């Protein structure tokens, strides 16, 4: 009986796992700096996007600052460092509003989040460098 129950739970979890994984995305706040001393934390937590960033941007260092996960369909207001990010909509039609210190900085709509394909909003002002918001749909 216990074996049957365990098998049932495992089977259910296996069925549900892909669905659960696909119903969310992550947002990471990243600081980009051109100068300053090397930090051992540079690039940590950004392994999946660091090559892309270095290919297109000249900033030497990228430091992970904060992150959060948003379930889809989204209707959330999140705080990442000094930024507030409002997300609404679904994977193929996401609206994102970015505020800094409560003041709207930008708003984007009809964003399509693809699995493991980053969508990055960069050039946002920060205390010591430029900030980036990295959106990544889960596979």
């Amino acid at each position, binding site marked *: *009986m216990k074996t*049957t*129950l365990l098998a*049932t739970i495992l*089977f*259910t979890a296996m*069925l*549900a796992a892909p*669905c*659960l994984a*696909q*119903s969310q995305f992550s947002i990471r706040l990243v600081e*980009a700096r*051109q100068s300053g001393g090397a930090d051992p934390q540079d690039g940590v937590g950004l392994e999946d*996007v660091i*090559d*892309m*960033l270095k*290919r*297109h*941007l*000249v*900033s030497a260092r990228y430091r992970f600052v904060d992150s959060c996960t948003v379930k*889809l*369909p989204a209707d959330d207001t999140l705080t990442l460092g000094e930024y507030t990010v409002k997300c609404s909509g*679904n*994977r*193929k*039609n996401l609206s994102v509003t970015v505020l*800094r210190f409560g*003041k*709207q*900085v*930008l*708003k*984007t*709509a*009809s*964003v*399509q989040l*693809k699995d493991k*394909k*980053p*969508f*990055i*909003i*960069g*050039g*946002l*002002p*920060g205390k010591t*460098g*430029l*900030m980036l918001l990295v959106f990544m749909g889960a596979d």
Partner: protein
Amino acid sequence: MMKKFTSGRIKELLGGRASAQAPDAVEFWSDFRARAKLVNQDRLGEPVAVPFAVRWRVAATACAAVVVAAGGLFLFRGDPGEEPTGQMTLDVTAAHSAVLVIEDESSQGTIVWIVGMEDGESNGDRA
């Protein structure tokens, strides 16, 4: 080189050996019965009696598994995945110089880079 035998020759060879080694039927069955008596044959072949409660539990567990799986898939089926409504739009409220959209071929990702926003100097872009 394979040696070929006719069917008659094969029968002759096998028949001779089989008749030489074939046991006596009476002796064989006598031995078989003696061996069979050593094993308790009473319960062999009887259907295993499963208590009603156990059968009910198994059935209930199976039903519950199906219901849970179906419910889980329904509740957590995730984003219904509406079709995209069109091109992405961007409205930069803060003062800025320009907006660059970079499509990365290898990762198939997109970078939207806002140049010269507010107090930040957008000197991080190469494009």
